């Protein structure tokens, strides 16, 4: 059997020392997928430019490609999809289509990158789209809580790390801001493409050609973990679900303890669920999501995120339990067999890569973070070496007080 993430650089355009185009051979994929990563992430904007990276990316989608048709609509008419996710380090565009339509969909995107349209009409459509997406995000308590944690980190780092910005900053963005951000950051060096379809390499390569040569602007806000005193953030929304989110510093993906961090997250989740008396039933899908611990290694800086569904009858007690466990685990001398938790961690990690789209997006994010394309396979291999010392190292971040965000609804819940 062949490895699950075999990487064959069928075409490697060398830009500097870094191959920018990668093909993951995936003959079983029912669709063609490409993820295009541009070094235009949240780390390229300042505090006063909150939301600019996302606004610029959405403006490309909303921009005119011909006769008043936006890129988004033109791609849909071709039977494709295009979406964007703005992360700590990159703007990540994902394009999907049936294989026979993929080249024409990619060509539309390349045209938009080569001749971006930041006209007043596009700006108005983009503003409406971003504000609508912001409003939608305010219905999800856990999402709001994560945004609050990102926001406080941004304030400490004097950067602007919330993905969409805030309504006040979104409405203040002008086309000159967008043009400047695009010109400075949508550059060929540092951009990368990962794709499934080997038959349309030329079309995919055109995306890189569409970018101006040179390197992007320097990183504006260096991300540092929040340490020191505990920060507690609260928000109330009219239609949001109740949620508690706790964030603790975690080892970065290049740290030797990174594989152990996956295992530690599972140990913490299991311990919280047991102490919170979550029912142990065979249909775990019914209780999954009530308590979740994630090792968010692609976030800058890396962190453990504990999410507690506020509709749990004893949610505030679960928060207390989590705080107590975090303190205990941070100085615990780990003993015994951790193979069970290694297996669970491996399963959770691998299931996130079970679709061609997920594999392509994940690989592009690895490249954006300066990691090897096959980082998942590396983690998978290294999980087998996790020992007590690595777990203790992975748990060190819990000595720091967490940042806690609580989102409630207007009825006072």
């Amino acid at each position, binding site marked *: 059997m062949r490895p*699950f993430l075999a990487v064959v650089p069928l075409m490697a355009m060398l830009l500097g020392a870094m191959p920018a185009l990668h093909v993951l051979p995936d003959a079983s994929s029912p669709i063609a997928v490409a993820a295009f990563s541009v070094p235009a992430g949240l780390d390229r904007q300042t505090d006063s430019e909150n939301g600019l990276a996302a606004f610029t990316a959405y403006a490309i989608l909303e921009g005119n490609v011909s006769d008043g048709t936006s890129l988004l609509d033109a791609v849909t*008419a071709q*039977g494709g999809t295009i979406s964007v996710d703005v992360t700590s380090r990159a703007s990540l565009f994902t394009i999907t289509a049936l294989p026979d*339509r993929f080249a024409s969909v990619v060509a539309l995107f390349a045209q938009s990158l080569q001749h971006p349209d930041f006209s007043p009409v596009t700006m108005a459509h983009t503003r409406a789209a971003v504000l609508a997406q912001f409003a939608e995000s305010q219905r999800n308590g856990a999402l709001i809580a994560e945004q609050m944690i990102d926001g406080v980190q941004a304030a400490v780092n004097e950067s602007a790390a919330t993905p969409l910005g805030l309504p006040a900053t979104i409405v203040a963005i002008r086309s000159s801001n967008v043009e400047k951000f695009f010109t400075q950051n949508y550059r060929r060096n540092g951009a990368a493409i990962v794709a499934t379809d080997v038959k349309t390499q030329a079309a995919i390569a055109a995306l890189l050609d569409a970018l101006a040569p040179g390197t992007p602007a320097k990183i504006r806000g260096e991300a540092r973990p929040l340490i020191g005193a505990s920060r507690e953030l609260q928000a109330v929304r009219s239609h949001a679900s109740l949620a508690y989110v706790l964030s603790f510093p975690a080892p970065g993906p290049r740290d030797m303890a990174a594989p152990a961090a996956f295992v530690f997250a599972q140990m913490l989740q299991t311990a919280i669920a047991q102490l919170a008396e979550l029912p142990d*039933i065979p249909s775990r899908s019914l209780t999954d999501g009530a308590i979740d611990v994630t090792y968010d290694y692609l976030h800058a800086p890396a962190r453990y995120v504990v999410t507690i569904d506020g509709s749990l009858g004893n949610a505030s007690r679960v928060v207390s339990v989590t705080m107590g466990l975090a303190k205990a685990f941070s100085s615990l001398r780990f003993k015994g067999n951790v193979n069970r938790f290694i297996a669970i*961690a491996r399963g959770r990690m691998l299931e996130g890569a*079970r679709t*061609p789209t997920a594999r392509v997006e994940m690989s592009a994010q690895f490249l954006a973070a300066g990691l090897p394309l096959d980082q998942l396979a590396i983690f998978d291999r290294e999980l087998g070496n996790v020992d007590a010392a690595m777990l203790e190292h992975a748990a060190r971040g819990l000595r720091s007080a967490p940042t806690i965000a609580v989102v409630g609804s207007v009825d006072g819940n």
Partner: protein
Amino acid sequence: MMRRALAIACMCACTLAPRGAAFASGDQATGTLARGGTYVVQQDPASPVTAIALWFRAPAAGYDGATPGISRLAAAAAASSPLATGKSLAHFVRDLGGRFSINIFADLVGVDALVPNAQARRVIAAMTAAYFAPTIDDASLTMARRDEAVAFVTQRYSLGSTLQTALAMALFAHGPHHDPLLPPSVAAIGSIPRDAVSSFAHQAFASSNAVLAVVGNVSPDIVRAVTDGTPNQGSAPMLDSLPGDEPLDTTIDAPVAGIGIAWSGPSISDEKAATAMDFLADQLFSSPPPHVTGQFVTLHAAGMFFATISGPSANATKKRVLARIEQLQSPLDAATFARLHAAFLLRIRQQTQAPDEVADEIGWYASEGNAAYAPGDHRGAYWTAATSLTPEYVASIAARYFSHPVVVTTKQSATP
């Protein structure tokens, strides 16, 4: 306590097909299990995880329709009983890094595991041991009752699930879809005796009544891991639900107010018509107005097309949905059809990327009597039907099936 044996691989006399041929990406191997029932293995070489789905024709309210919830109790109890390792199937899968889930429908039970590829063989052995030779003791039944209580509360607070079940009960005059999925109260869960659950499990979960779907980076000989179980009397008949001549509108109590509307649709054997109904559902529900959901449910005898509506202006929204349904009965212009059809074809493929989605679809469509029509087979009958749709044909199907809907209204109750 009885323990079941795991992995009696050498006893399994499964027919492996295709023999001698290379098993390439996307290929399917199908065959018959040693004690009856069918298997489908589909190759997905790039996936790091394998999906294993075991599906059975099993009425949610029992074979007499009088014991709502018995199929979930039986499925959960079988997954909670200790295997030869001393662990239950549910714990065994979890400790190998997998996810285990139980899906109950009016006429079917599906149990799924999603595990790292290296664990697939062991999980197939464990899963077939747990279900093909079920042993249900008091401890596993207690666990199953807890599971069903959580499912009961979850469904009670889900307007979509509540309305979908109520619509099926109103639309179909006979058969499992006419019966409730779960007991009327949490207290009633405890009144179903262990003997009844055990008897149901032995009848429903026999190998001869099973469809085993395995999708991942595996070869067809993985089915040699199947644990045979006990001999059974043969395959179970189809559990058909038939619509009534004039279904009656109803009002039910629920924690949330809402409206459901439904029509009966073509059977699974009318592949092109059923696919046209999926396309119509895609037009209505892929980017629906706020507070509207719905789909076409493909079934053996007659399918169900439904919409659920919630929110403060549910009545006005219902009128808009019905007006849209009326419009669908006229052919779309060529350009609009081409755009929507292209988006539909892409969505079919997007929704069948994950091995667990493909395995579930194989299980569902095979159990409903048409395995070859599962959308996860990208070279199969579904794709042929989907690509052959025309504006005129789709409109004719809408005109044929969208006559008088059945309507269910939920009245907000003071107590859940």
